[in-house]
């Protein structure tokens, strides 16, 4: 799966990885503090 013929495959796959990395950064940065995490009102696992 090399060369010009499979360019769209690599573009799509790389885009999926980039989206995953961005999603990971956003989701990790919005993680709760330890205080929130262990609060009895916490709803996040």
């Amino acid at each position: 799966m090399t060369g010009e013929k499979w360019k769209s495959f690599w573009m799509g796959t790389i885009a999926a990885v980039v989206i995953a990395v961005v999603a990971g950064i956003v989701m990790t940065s919005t993680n709760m503090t330890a205080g929130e995490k262990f609060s009895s009102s916490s709803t996040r696992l």
Partner: protein
Amino acid sequence: MTGKKLRRLLAVLSILVFAGLTGSPMLSVQPAAAQSGGQVPGGWSGSTSDAEFWRAIRKGVRGTVSIPDKKAAQLVQSDGDEFRAFRNGKMASTGVTAMIIVVLVLFVFFIIRGKIKIDAGRDPEGQTIERFNTLERFTHWMTASSFIILSLTGLNVLYGKLFMPVLIGKEAFAAVSMWGKMAHNYIAWAFMIGIVMMFILWVKDNIPGPTDIKWLAKGGGLFAKGMHPPAKRFNAGQKLIFWSVIVGGASLSTSGLALLFPFELQMFAGTFKIINVFGFDFPTVLSPLQETQYALMWHGIVGIGMIVIIIAHIYIGSLGMEGAIDAVADGHVDRNWAIEHHGLWVEELDNEATAGAESQPAE
């Protein structure tokens, strides 16, 4: 006092002292609880049996709490037992059976039918038709690659513990599972975006029509050489795949979001209410934990269903049919392939080209 009388008095006193020290019921002045109303003696709860009390907790009875986390009102969530038994039992065994069956069916089909060739052979002049443009191919591969990662990591969650520790060791399995779970959570966003893009790009060509019934009646020409029922841009089989991916993908996405943000998105009680209109009797009052368990079960069931469908899709798009893979590789398919498998679509393209040429002013 004679010595005999003294001995009797000491004997009675010693009995009384002994009974008092040991708390003998013989001397209790209060009536036993068992003697009133036939109740088994209770502990701190009075006449109620401790066994009944703990049995009720074990069966999932809910109390009340004043703290914000209302889940704390239920000490033992008994539905979890049934959920675990179903997930590790029937769901897991049915899922693996379905995947084995589809692989076997495709293998037998390949042995009998072989690779479906282009009957007329490839166009001698090398003419090709653009089937999918760059954006369409990009969308296909972004969704496909993310789905493959999601499938592998999802299967690891359900089945990995059964064989992975033996193959790679417990420590490696733990690491693979941890990274796999993170990959699953994050790459799911690419899949969700891909599903939305696919819907926007291809819905107009995937509306079912009369030609689809004819195509299905002839089995899509898959079972006989030289038979090519007419089809537009997408045949009935491809439309089935499309709608399976859209509906299944949407269902996977919503249940996945409910798992990404547990106890925040709750949709099953509401969905059950709607389904019950059709005569079903699903529970419409669910605790947050039950909602999460339903989401987990549904996510797994739909995920395995999608894997089964996509295995068939991958087969027919690669090993099973000559020239099909070109459509998503560089986007251009052989003209003879297009005529045989999507004859009505080629006619439409030719008519558009002719109309376009006629509308050009003569120079």
